[in-house]
């Protein structure tokens, strides 16, 4: 499955990053989180590409991008690479849309390079220290253990995905296959675990104060049935970011792009249009 006709690659720090780009207009950057890759945008990408210049990226270690193990996959490092990526593509301003860890990267990006963003959209995003990342050695921490198990046992992985989707009937073998694709190779599994090990909530706790001072409009979308990330994260973000708006979708779970792609697209486009009017 590809998002559009062809994939592109871009060399960042000696590693190849794969991305998809289509459409005209203002640039939108779609950033996925852990356990997924660009495919998660397949129901969103074409809709947005009707009015925007949409880019969906595979983070380093994910999808079809390179999977080095001697490079940090911490979200601040991913955010840094995204900056280099945007620069390399010659983009001066864009809409940042991040899901899960991608949302964490968006927060870092917004704090560090506010001038580059029109706005920020966080979809079932991590934030603060609410996401239960323990030191790597503490393998008994549930989420890490689940990642580990997921990397060695597809049954566990399937369970993990299924839990993250509200409309269980959407969990087809084809969808599971898409999720599993990177884990089919030893390199993919190593990169996946490397990503998990690199998670460090200090990255986001460090910018807690900066978020309170964020000027740009921020849209917070939450699939409210998410079993992994609690509603309090979204509520706190909404509370603390001055120009933010929270959209709760009760019939969505962690992978809300699979549950309610139309509503996600609607929320995003409405939000962006309104911002545009305000900006103009």
């Amino acid at each position, binding site marked *: 499955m590809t998002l559009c006709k062809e994939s592109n690659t871009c060399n960042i720090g000696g590693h190849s990053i794969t991305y998809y780009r289509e459409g005209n207009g203002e640039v939108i950057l779609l950033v996925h989180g852990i356990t997924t890759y660009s495919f998660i945008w397949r129901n969103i990408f074409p809709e947005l590409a009707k009015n925007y210049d949409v880019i969906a990226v595979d983070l380093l270690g994910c999808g079809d991008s390179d*999977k*080095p*193990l*001697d490079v940090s996959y911490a979200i601040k490092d991913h955010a840094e690479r995204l900056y280099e990526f945007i620069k390399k593509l010659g983009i001066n301003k864009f809409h940042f849309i991040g899901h899960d860890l991608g949302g964490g990267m968006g927060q870092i990006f917004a704090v560090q390079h506010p001038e580059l963003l029109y706005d920020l959209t966080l979809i079932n995003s991590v934030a603060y220290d609410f996401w239960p990342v323990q030191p790597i*050695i503490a*393998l*008994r921490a549930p989420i890490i253990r689940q990642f*580990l*198990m997921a*990397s*060695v*046992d597809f049954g566990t992985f399937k369970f993990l995905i299924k839990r993250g989707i509200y409309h269980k009937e959407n969990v087809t073998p084809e969808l599971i296959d898409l999720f599993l694709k990177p884990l089919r190779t*030893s*390199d993919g*599994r*190593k990169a996946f*675990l490397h990503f998990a090990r690199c998670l460090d909530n200090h990255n986001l706790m460090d910018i807690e104060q900066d978020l309170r001072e964020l000027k740009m409009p921020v849209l917070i979308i939450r699939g409210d049935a998410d079993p992994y990330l609690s509603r309090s994260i979204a509520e706190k973000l909404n509370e603390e970011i001055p120009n933010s708006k929270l959209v709760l979708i009760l019939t969505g779970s962690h992978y809300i792009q699979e549950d309610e792609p139309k509503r996600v697209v609607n929320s995003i486009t409405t939000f962006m249009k309104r911002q545009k009017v305000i900006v103009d």
Partner: protein
Amino acid sequence: MSISELEKRIQDLEAKIEILEKENALLADRREDTLLLGIIAERINIISDISQVVDVGLENISLLKDIPFCAFCRLEGNDLNITNYYFSESNKPLNTTTFELPAQVRKKVLSGATQLDKDECTQVFPSIKFESKDFSSTSLLLIPTKSKLRKTELFSFANSSSNEKLSVTVPLLERIVEMISARIDNIFLVMELNKLNQALEQKVLGRTQELVNANKVLQEKEEKYRNLFNEALDMIHFIDKAGNIIDANPAELETLQYSRDEFIGKPLIDFIAPDFKEKTKNALGKLFSGEEIKAYHTVMLAKDGSRIEVEANVVPEMDEGQFVQTRAIIRNITDRKKMEDNILKIKKLESVGMLAGGIAHDFNNILAAILGNASLAKLNAIPGDKFHDRLSEIEQASLRAKDLTQQLLTFAKGGEPIKEVTSAEEVIKDSASFVLRGSNVRCAFRFSENLWAVEVDAGQISQVIQNLIINSRQSMPLGGNIEVVCENYSYDGSKLIPFKPGRYIKIIIKDHGTGIPHNMVDKIFDPYFSTKQNGSGLGLAVTHSIVMKHQGHIEVESRQGIGTTFTVFLPATEKKVKEYQEKSWVEYLDGKGKVMVMDDDQMVRTTAGAMLEKIGYEVVFAKDGKEAVAEYIKENNSNTPIDIIIMDLTIPGGMGGKEAANEILKINPEAKLIVSSGYSDDPIMANFQDYGFCSAMVKPYRLHELMTIVGQAMKESENEP
């Protein structure tokens, strides 16, 4: 409860909680271990490649037990060769895969799981170098596989943290190694089994190929014999114990005119002629008891009832003394038999011919006397008188006897025709009437007016007509009319008729008999071909031969049930038929001159002498050529030399006419010599001029014939200077 008591209580509870938490942690560990075992077991059981099994085991151990470097090695001497490994911190390959195992470590390792501390560890893996990263292990666990099937293999687990962390996993890793090892053995055995299977399969394939080849050779052989069977000109068949036909080749089916279904499976005896059934049954009996039969003669019956004479070589095919079937190769000898019969017939005919020839010669001489004397006697009788008539009858009878001997002689020697200008009408009427005398068949003659004369051997043409009429008569057993038409025919060469353009007379003999079967019309002129049960097969052959010798042509047209028409063409001649008028005989009875009669037969000499004297000639005799020559010389010197000599051609034991003529012509080339013989078909008779004769005269002869021929010769003699 005092505060201190409460505090104590709280301490107790905290201690209990701590214990419970530890137990809980242990339980969680155990659960995780069980899970790992389960996952590995599940994974490796669906993989049938040893290397992949090892890889899956190493990766899962590394991931779930957080051991960065896990490897699978072969122990060869003191060398530890890493064949598979999993390193969680790099994707790059290992730089070196061979490490030396110190002797004391080696010894320990072979006896069971061995954990090495940091110092020992660095002896084994001083530094594990990957392309982009070095890994310095601080703790190393080596667990040997206990496979009895394979060389010593080791699982190595290394981390760079505490020894303790690795040591708690030993029991679990031992179990995992055992499990993986068992799976490897299993796969190894299956592989060995597969190899054996393959070898076996190869053998089976080889053997199958051999069989296929052998089968092919057999098939080729079979085909070869099948072809022989199918293409043989001789008939071939196989008979089973019950005497039924198992198989027969196309030649046999074709010869006997049966289809396979009509023939195969039927008793052989059904196809044997009734008169040979008994003999064939006996032969089959012999065969069933194992006796071979060679050149066995029998007669089979074709579907149309025709008898097929066969000669067979029959072999009984036995299996362990038991009769299985007979194999018979049968030759159709029907034609050969017929040929043999024909040869026999020819030989018979030849001997009859020789006999006939011999008799005819003497008989001719006798006839000459009878005919001559009858002719002479008639001179003394008054025409119209009974006495005269009787003599005429004697003359006629003698002439018929002459014809008969003539036929006998022709038949015996086939000879050349002695042609004379003849009226065909007379010959035809005489011959036809003669043949039909006393039968219920009549001839309806139709002769053109002014029919051209023919120059033919009347005797032979008579035979032609007789043969054709006989055939017609036989084809009309209930009687009826045979139309005999004779007319002039001018052939301009425009039609496809195989004879020269010119004038012919055309004789049509048309009957209303049974006709000749269509397929036999072409054969009727072949010698020894006959449609009649007792036919000699010679009649039409002789007829054809005679017509050909006369430069004529014969055609046949026949329709079964309607009748047969023979058409004979004979070349016409301009010459006039010599008329013999009995009345004018007397006019010639004024012969003058001297005639010598040379014949070994006293009777002939006397009769001829009497006739010649009656005509008026002076007659001298000679018994043979020698005497004739001597007499001729003697007379030649006298005043009355011999004018004409009538010479017999054949003088048994003495000089014949031919040699005598030679001698005499040497003396007098102008000598008038007449050759006389009963063998009308002798080449000398036919071509008498070539031998110096001026005429030929067939014995026996009547007075008027003698008179005419001698008179003619005498006239020529007088005209010459």
